């Protein structure tokens, strides 16, 4: 089991599987997959902006459970590594790493609310639905993320 899950599956397995989840949610719930909407639903409910939790909040809860299940089944539960940020700002600089990650999370949350979707919502789902706004958003976030990744590497982010 450990060996099986620690090898990532072929793209032509996992890509269509994600596509089928988008289709499955549309077929059963007549709704569109989007993870940011789940975070937003939890925020709206807990701040009194909404009276109930939307289905996407339950979808996000499922994602958390999926991560838990994978971690336990693959024997990879628990990690103190978060890529270049925690490698660059380690030891006494860990506070900086935390602040950088909080700041990045804020950009993700705020930006995806403005763009009305994240990688799953605008990317996987909106593009599958052929929504013009999602094509524009997806092109923009891919171009920005790729470009900025090269800038971060050039600045010494390891």
């Amino acid at each position, binding site marked *: 089991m450990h060996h099986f899950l620690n090898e990532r599956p072929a793209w032509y397995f996992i890509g269509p599987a994600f596509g089928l*989840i988008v289709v499955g949610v549309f077929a059963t719930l007549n709704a569109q997959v989007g993870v940011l909407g789940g975070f937003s639903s939890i925020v709206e409910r807990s701040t009194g902006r909404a009276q109930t939790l939307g289905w996407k909040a339950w979808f996000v809860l499922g994602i958390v459970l999926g991560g838990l299940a994978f971690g336990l089944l693959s024997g990879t*539960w628990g990690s103190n590594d978060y890529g270049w940020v925690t490698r660059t700002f380690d030891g006494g600089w860990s506070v900086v790493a935390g602040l950088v990650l909080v700041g990045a999370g804020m950009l993700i949350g705020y*930006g995806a609310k403005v763009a009305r979707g994240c990688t799953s919502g605008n990317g996987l789902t909106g593009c599958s639905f052929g929504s013009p*706004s999602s094509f524009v958003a997806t092109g923009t976030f891919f171009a920005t993320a790729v470009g900025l990744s090269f800038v971060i590497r050039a600045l010494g982010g390891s």
Partner: protein
Amino acid sequence: MRVKAISVGFGTLFGFLLCWGTFGQPDAIRRMLLLEDAYLYLMFASAVAVGAVGIRLVHRLRDAPLPQTKPERRHVVGAAIFGAGWAVSDACPGPIATQLGRGFGWSLCTAGGIVLGILLYFRREESAARSPGEFTLASRPASSSTVAASSSGTASLMASAPVASRRSSTGRADFE
């Protein structure tokens, strides 16, 4: 109850696959964004290809509009801000949710940041609503039109509902 069960079920599958595909590992995402690994792009293209075919097959069985929206400035500006956060953290909302379950301690920072970003958005939107003379990106009146292409192929313009009711409705675009 049925909706909750289906949602949790699909979410669990989605989260498990995100982990298996290494999308929950910042270093793996970084290699993909540095174009050293084509996996993300091949996954994405094949997911959209299968999704697009499947959505249209399901849509044929229904006499309802296919949710679509027109591009606006907010989609470019918001996606650029989002992309910056994605590049810095090498994570996005789905993978961050898997990391919470998988015991990645630092994901509390990125998840907490997402919550703060969402709250900032609502604060700005609510503040703009109180002073209608000032428009933010999120509240510009022209930014809320929805194109609904009917099953017969014609398109009509309709004003979208406020955020809260749009979320609870079906058949309308909600890609968040």
